[in-house]
């Protein structure tokens, strides 16, 4: 189940991710000298050093032993093998040089949260036996056209370096990376045991690249293309899978906007006995889905294609869709429903009672069509939908889905001045009915503090709270007051909160609450909020665990930015666009913090002497500024 959640999730991991181990990573080779003063970093004065590796060497823990103790290292190797979590591994690597060495030689799964935080060479120098690799590229706000295309995040240097260093590589999981067909070809050629390719929100490749992977990676178990842009090269990639029985366990191509050869797909599914997850694109019709389901009753996760019929002769007998779904007793995760014809929805009744995850976010369903379905979904834990289900639909969810952990409501009409079919009424209902809620993303046009406060009190398990009131600067529509108290209650009452996105009319007070009470907040998204620098200062001087800060269109200036200098090395990145920053200040910070890469992003016709900073994107890096920055990026 959790596997399905992370597949569906657009979010980052919720696991703790300690800051990049700058100090020990700076040590390329274990040296025989006993001195191990910090090579590159300033002394960090914040009290929170528990996960912070940027500290002075006063701990003296890096004295190396004059002769490596082979016995000890062998023992260590056997023990450290059992450590999976990267937090634990990072901590272990800091104990001493010996532990660092052994940990580096036994780490098989590497996670890199920012592809520009280090070079591929550094990765391969430190870790020798990597078989699984997660890499993230562009910052999230790039998804919303706040950055010009061709900014970077190229997979090419990574794949070419790893091709030589890790021929045994099995898994690659990329998010917001630019991946070309050549990169995919190199991947397919270089890793004979390759098993899992997951591309989330990526672009730069097409069906020809996919075809090469399908053809050459004979041990492929997972091919998941999720919300990526895939060009239609008019290649029949489904036919490129090898003829014999495959190892496929998961195949997701719902984002591929290209017709597929259904006969080949049917054949592929028939010779994939281990296939559990299948997500089709909209070019697979309902009739074709029916045939697939009859041939694959072992599926646990299904993404339907088009849930409608094309023009067809009237007299043709329609297949019994409900029967096909009945045959799939194991399906617990359902998504797709593109081009939905509501009259076919009842076909999914047979699987409703088993569903733990349901994604209706591409289906424009009215409350009347929706309620009969959801009333059967007692086991539902993850639910994504469009706001077309209205407050009424949310009330139905609240009545039935007592196990709900994650809710996402997207706007059918994503404009500021559109009708708002969901409101505080729906939010209140959910908070009362779904007490186990952990994660919520909610787009609406109007909201009240009372409903948000209610949620903070009713749902103590919340770790992710993202509320998007689509009208900018919109206050509580009942009281006319800012939304300060609502968000304040969330940070105060939801003690496990790690991710927060705010909206609506917010004064500096809201940020005072966030800074004071947001003890575990790692990711904060701010847009059109706050009155002054003080707001940002509250956050930077509080929120001890803050890692990722993204801000747009808020009146925060140089003084606020400077106030965070003590902590930028402990963060993954800071994004600020359309704020009140000056180039001079950004330059000062760049000079004072040599391991921070400070990018000022503009358009081509920018006057280089212009002082105003449209977009600031800054992040720590072990290997200095990148060499592939395009013209419109100035690295200060």
């Amino acid at each position, binding site marked *: 189940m959790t596997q399905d959640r992370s597949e569906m999730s657009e979010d980052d991991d919720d696991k703790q991710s300690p800051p990049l181990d700058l100090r020990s990573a700076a040590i390329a080779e274990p040296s025989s000298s006993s001195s191990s003063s910090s090579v590159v970093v300033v002394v960090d004065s914040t009290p929170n050093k528990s996960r912070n590796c940027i500290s002075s060497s006063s701990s003296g823990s890096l004295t190396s032993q004059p002769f490596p103790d082979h016995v000890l290292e062998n023992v260590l190797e056997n023990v450290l093998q059992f450590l999976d979590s990267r937090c634990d591994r990072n901590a272990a690597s800091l104990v001493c040089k010996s532990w660092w060495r052994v940990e580096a030689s036994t780490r098989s799964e590497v996670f890199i949260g920012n592809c520009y935080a280090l070079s591929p060479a550094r990765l391969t120098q430190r870790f020798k036996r990597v078989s699984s690799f997660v890499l993230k590229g562009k910052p999230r706000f790039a998804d919303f056209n706040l950055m010009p295309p061709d900014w970077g995040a190229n997979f090419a240097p990574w794949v070419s370096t790893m091709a030589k260093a890790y021929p045994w590589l099995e898994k690659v999981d990329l998010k917001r990376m630019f991946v070309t067909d050549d990169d995919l070809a190199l991947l397919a050629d270089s890793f004979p045991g390759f098993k899992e390719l997951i591309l989330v929100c990526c672009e730069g490749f097409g069906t020809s690249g996919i075809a090469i992977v399908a053809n050459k990676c004979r041990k492929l178990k997972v091919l998941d293309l999720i919300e990526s842009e895939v060009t239609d090269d008019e290649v029949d990639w489904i036919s490129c899978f090898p003829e014999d029985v495959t190892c496929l366990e998961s195949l997701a191509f719902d984002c591929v906007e290209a017709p597929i050869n259904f006969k080949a797909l049917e054949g592929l599914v028939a010779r994939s006995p281990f296939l559990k997850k299948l997500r089709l694109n909209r070019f697979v019709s309902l009739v074709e889905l029916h045939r697939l389901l009859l041939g694959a009753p072992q599926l646990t996760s299904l993404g339907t294609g088009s849930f409608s019929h094309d023009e067809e002769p*009237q007299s043709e007998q329609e297949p019994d869709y409900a029967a096909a779904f009945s045959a799939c007793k194991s399906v617990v995760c359902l998504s797709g429903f593109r081009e939905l014809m509501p009259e076919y929805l009842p076909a999914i009744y047979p699987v409703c009672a088993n569903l733990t995850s349901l994604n209706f976010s591409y289906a424009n369903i009215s409350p*009347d069509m929706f309620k009969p379905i959801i009333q059967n979904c007692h086991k539902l834990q993850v639910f994504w939908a469009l706001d077309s289900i209205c407050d009424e639909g949310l009330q139905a969810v609240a009545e039935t889905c007592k196990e709900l952990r994650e809710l996402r409501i997207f706007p059918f009409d994503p404009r*500021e001045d559109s009708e708002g079919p969901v409101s505080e009424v729906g939010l209140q209902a959910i908070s009362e009915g779904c007490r186990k809620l952990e994660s919520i993303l909610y787009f609406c046009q109007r909201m009240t503090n009372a409903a948000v406060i209610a949620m903070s009190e009713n749902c103590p398990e919340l770790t992710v709270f993202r509320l998007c009131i689509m009208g900018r600067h919109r206050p509580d529509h009942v009281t006319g007051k800012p939304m300060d108290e609502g968000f304040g209650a969330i940070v105060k009452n939801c003690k496990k909160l790690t991710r927060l996105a705010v909206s609506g009319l917010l004064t500096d007070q809201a940020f005072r609450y966030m800074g004071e009470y947001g003890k575990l907040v790692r990711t904060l998204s701010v847009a059109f909020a706050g009155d002054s620098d003080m707001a940002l200062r509250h956050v930077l001087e509080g929120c001890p665990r803050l890692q990722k800060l993204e801000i747009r269109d808020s009146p925060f200036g140089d003084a606020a930015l400077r106030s965070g200098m003590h902590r930028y090395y402990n963060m993954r990145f800071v994004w600020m666009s359309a704020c009140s920053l000056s180039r001079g200040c950004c330059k000062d910070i760049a000079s004072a913090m040599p391991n921070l890469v400070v990018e000022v992003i503009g358009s081509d016709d920018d006057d280089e002497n212009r002082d105003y900073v449209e977009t600031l994107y800054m992040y720590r890096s072990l290997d200095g500024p990148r060499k592939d920055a395009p013209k419109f990026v100035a690295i200060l």
Partner: protein
Amino acid sequence: MAYEKKVNELNLKDTELCLGLPGRTEEIKEEQEVSCVKSNNKRQFEETRDEEESTPPTKTQIVGWPPVRSYRKNNSVSYVKVSMDGAPYLRKIDLKTYKNYPELLKALENMFKFTVGEYSEREGYKGSGFVPTYEDKDGDWMLVGDVPWDMFSSSCKRLRIMKGSDAPTLDASL
């Protein structure tokens, strides 16, 4: 905040100021961008992911707001089947693209090349022999036009244009 809205189907796009290059085709996807913070800095990023805007842009549309990925924006179509007695093929339409009954009926007439008669509440459709009916969420077959438009569009599961001889058997009211 007052935004200009689409008025009586007039496409205000033509009269709008825009920062795009002159001579751009009607497939302009990006609206004029305005930053809320005072700056003399208006920038327009070329939209690489082609985004079909189904409504004309309002005057002060903000880039990337609300924060919904373009991937999500051009989708969520929902169709109902339309059949006509005697026609060999079914069609499908998206009810959301129509705002009222006249628009819908006009589209149906174009689609199947017929004319629907005069509608009156008491007597239904008269004059052409074709009667538009629909199946609602409860499975009942109703006459198109009997209920308010919004109620119709949210409960209509499929449409059937009946030929005159069947029409009188249909109960014109609920």
